[in-house]
């Protein structure tokens, strides 16, 4: 008699179909073992926004009565497995419905397994994940994050590979045999079955200690009751005065909501070549989230706490190769690029070259007109 649940954390829109395939796969596979289950998305993530950290779940029980305890709930909080479909989510997640930045392992039960698709090492990943306070396992499925679009699904087998890995790390939820049967029935494609089996063999697990991980304090907050809330749905505006930056003489930094960070949505970030920038203002004008701080010397510095990685600045910048969107995997902090550049111009140029060369993969959108045709040509070669 038992109930088990799987949480899938993914990038809204880009990975929605994949997350759905995984959760459905879990329930359908468990059905092969006579269990009963449900698959659902966290309602407050709907409708999704590009790149927003979103969640779907699968809950399976031995009996309908047991399952009943998990129906009409938004999210199970003690998951056996949390699947992370993009390793940049390991830094923490914040849904667009706003819960503040929360640790990726928050809803993982004690002794559970965090399954991440990544090309990074376990040690490197653990450093970015909040400390859990209880031991768990980190399993890595070697793969770059798979991103699709709103209308298309890139069927690169990441969904079934994650299902195969799940059977390995949590055989009490579903066996490999049930998983392969369910995949075979759902997709009628034996190559997908083979991919699942391969992932089952290849997935590597590392134990993570209670104290291992990033010591950053997760965001916490309390919600007022009805006797304390202002009546009439009124929210007081935040201080509209521009922010003072120590050491900055001049420039302009708009005030921002200090508790609403949008960067966990980002799958790519703009890197700016200040050596070629003409200070034309277009990026600053066009950024939908007012992310650009105006520096004392009149440059535009994209604030990495606020940037959601939409790519608009890259698209509007009239100077060739001046703004480049780079996969978020390549970065460990949100430090100011302009400050780095002013301190060491040559060092910054080298950093820029390395970043652009290192992670050229884009998660979404296009850099220039005609890029799609080029990519198609590339792939059919």
């Amino acid at each position, binding site marked *: 008699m038992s109930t088990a649940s799987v949480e899938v954390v993914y990038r809204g829109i880009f990975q929605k179909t994949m997350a759905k395939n995984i959760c459905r796969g879990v329930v359908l596979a468990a*059905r092969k073992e006579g269990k009963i289950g449900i*698959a659902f998305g966290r309602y407050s993530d709907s409708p999704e926004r590009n790149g927003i950290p979103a969640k779907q779940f699968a809950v399976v029980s031995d009996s309908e009565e047991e399952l009943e305890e998990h129906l009409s709930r938004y999210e199970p909080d003690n998951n056996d497995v949390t699947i992370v479909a993009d390793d940049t989510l390991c830094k923490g997640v914040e849904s667009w419905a706003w819960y503040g930045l929360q640790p990726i392992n928050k809803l993982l039960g004690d002794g559970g397994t965090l399954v991440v698709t990544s090309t990074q090492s376990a040690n490197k990943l653990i450093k970015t994940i909040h400390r859990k306070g209880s031991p768990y396992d980190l399993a890595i499925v070697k793969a770059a994050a798979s991103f699709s679009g709103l209308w298309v699904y890139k069927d690169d087998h990441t969904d079934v590979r994650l299902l195969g890995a799940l059977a390995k790390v949590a055989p009490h939820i579903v066996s490999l045999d049930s998983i392969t049967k369910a995949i075979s029935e759902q997709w009628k494609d034996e190559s997908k079955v083979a991919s699942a089996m391969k992932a089952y063999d290849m997935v590597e697990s590392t134990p993570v200690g209670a104290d291992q991980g990033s010591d950053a304090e997760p965001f916490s907050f309390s919600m007022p*009751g009805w006797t304390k809330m202002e009546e009439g749905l009124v929210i007081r505006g935040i201080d509209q005065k521009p922010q003072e930056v120590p050491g900055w003489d001049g420039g302009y930094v708009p005030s921002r909501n200090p508790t609403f960070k949008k960067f966990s949505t980002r799958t790519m970030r703009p890197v700016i070549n200040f050596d070629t920038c003409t200070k034309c203002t277009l990026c600053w004008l066009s950024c939908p989230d007012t992310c650009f701080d105006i520096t004392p010397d009149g440059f535009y510095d994209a604030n990495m706490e606020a940037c959601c990685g939409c790519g608009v600045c890259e698209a509007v910048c009239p100077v060739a190769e001046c703004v480049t969107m780079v996969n978020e995997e390549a970065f460990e902090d949100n430090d100011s690029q302009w400050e780095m550049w002013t301190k060491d111009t040559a060092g910054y140029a080298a950093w820029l070259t390395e970043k652009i060369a290192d992670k050229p993969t884009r998660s979404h959108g296009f850099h220039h007109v005609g890029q799609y045709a080029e990519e198609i040509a590339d792939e059919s070669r």
Partner: protein
Amino acid sequence: MSPAKATAVKRVEATGGPSGETEELISGSEAIAHVCRLADVDVITAYPIRPYDTVMQCVSQMISNGDFDCEFIVAESEHSQFEIVKHASAVGARVFCGSSGVGWFYAFEALAVTAGLRLPMVAMVGNRALDDPGAFGVEHNDALAVRDLGWMLAWVSTAQEALDTALIAYRVAEDPRVFLPCAISCDGAFLTHSQAIVNVPSQEMVDGFLPPYDRAEKQLHPDNPITIAPQANEDWLMEMRRQNDMAARRARDVIIEAYEDFGAKFGRGGEPFIERYMMEDAEVALVGMGTLAMPVKVAVRKMREQGKKVGFTRVRWFRPFPTQELQDALGGTKAVAVIDRDYSFGSTFYSGTLTNELRSALYPLESRPKIVSTIAGLGGREVTADNVIEIAGMAFDVAEGGDVSEEDTYWIGVRE
């Protein structure tokens, strides 16, 4: 092995078996979309609003996959959406429509006259809070708003029940003794966005249960020259309303017939109007609608383990209101706690609508149970089994003459 597990295992074996049903992993909305396909609905109109839009997504997918053929019209607003199907129904088309929250309200002019014109539209309401502030979690106020107009209203608690009830709704609504619209309410998120294992019947099974829609001499057609909805003043309206009243009364027997036939043909469906859960010897009863049933049943089982004589009565049909059934189910209890997932500000004892209706249904009883009025789960807030145990505790308290008042309404799970 518990009996529940035995059922689960049996269902696996039944897949594609002699019953002719197939097992699918689908949401409550998708289950209703399957009914549109199986009932071969002729005209469907759509206008997006969460959570109802999950139906139109599934319907449009079935059409583009070639599994279903109908006039699928994306209207420019909910008002037009309901006007279109209203008129289509008059010419003899089987129709489907739906909405949620304030979208349903935007269609109100059309909704109000559909029953008066005796058009058997079937709609789904994906229950959603009435904005502001753009909240999209479940509250029942949206669908309840048509309760006085001649609409039949059903609330379901599982995706399977959504499917079954939608089939029954077509049969009842299109019965010439009734000819009234029917809305099936599905709690936003918990039914509309959650996929569960559902048995989807075969075309043959549905054809054997649901006769074609036939308006006969009421069909608007060049060969049958009639006028529908001419100007009617005080000389006519009261008689027309009385006819409507009689149709709403007749619906009761038609619903009972439909459940009997559905039970015989599909082997499920349960009691029409209400579900009784552990009510046989219950001294205290909880009453609610929709997916509240899940935490309530869990809580009832927990309290039963502690020897508490508590049961649950789920209202499945709000219109026609199951007055007799509720009198029968609750008449022998000492106290009833109603959980309203709706509000009716300024009403009798500040209660929600379900409580107020129930209170008047029980009034004629010789010995009436005491009634505890509660409001919970607004805006889609989770109602937990612990919330339910707290509510049941209040009912036990009032039964024993404690401090809980019958003349007040208690908000459960609200932050003070």
